[in-house]
């Protein structure tokens, strides 16, 4: 399907507010791959990611009026909705039940070979994996698992100030990798 039309973010937002199916179609075609990688990198489970991606697009459709361009790009907003929806799922009961089953199966597989090598290559994880361990852990907990800085401080038993400093320096490192 060749896509000849190309809209700027503000044009797209205006079209979405008119709620036409064509606007939805354009949004989906141009953003689903990126958003799916975000969801998948957090959930690391295709079935769940499929459900959450649907949920994300429904949410975006319903909440487009809440998007404020003064606070950032449409893309950033979409990624944050995707990340939040994924983390909500991560915290939900049904996820935890499924995870237990999956971990049982994984133990069987890991003994035989690779399982995590595949999910480690998804989206932002690919880049985060280049960071040193101390930075990786903070981004894992904050970005991929959705813990607040306060929660991380309690979880790792290190002062909040240290968490803040370390998270920032992790992000500065990450930025250097993104630029490459």
């Amino acid at each position, binding site marked *: 399907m060749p896509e000849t039309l190309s809209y700027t973010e503000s044009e797209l937002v205006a079209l979405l507010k008119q709620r036409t199916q064509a606007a939805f179609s354009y949004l*989906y075609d141009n953003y689903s791959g990126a958003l799916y990688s975000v969801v998948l990198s957090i959930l690391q489970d295709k079935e769940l990611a499929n459900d959450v991606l649907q949920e994300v697009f429904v949410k975006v459709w319903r909440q487009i009026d809440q998007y404020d361009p003064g606070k950032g790009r449409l893309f950033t907003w979409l990624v944050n909705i995707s990340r939040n929806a994924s983390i909500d799922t991560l915290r939900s009961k049904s996820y935890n039940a499924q995870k237990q089953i999956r971990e049982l199966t994984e133990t069987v597989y890991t003994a035989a070979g690779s399982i995590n090598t595949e999910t480690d290559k998804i989206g*932002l994880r690919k880049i985060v994996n280049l960071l040193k361990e101390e930075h990786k852990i903070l981004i894992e907990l904050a970005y991929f698992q959705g813990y607040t800085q306060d929660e991380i401080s309690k979880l790792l038993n290190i002062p909040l100030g240290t968490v803040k400093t370390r998270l920032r320096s992790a992000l500065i490192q990450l930025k250097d990798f993104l630029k490459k």
Partner: protein
Amino acid sequence: MDIKEYIQSGIIEQYVLGLADPDEVAELQLLRNEYPELHEAISDFEQIFEETIRANQVQPPVFIKSAVEKQLFASTRGGERRNCRKSKSDKRKG
């Protein structure tokens, strides 16, 4: 406020990735209106972030698009109008 130092502190990355605390977000919003160079630095990082995510994108299974379209457009001719009652029918919890 040394704005250059602030720009390089990592707060921009934290904000864009959605990892800043509410008070940090509020501060950044205030400063952003005051310092155009901060605003520009945020936009620059958002751009880099978008390019990276796009470069690593993963295509979802094809059925998802039509599944969402069905949910959003199939019910009435005019497409979905904010239908609060219907939104409860999230099927995920099961």
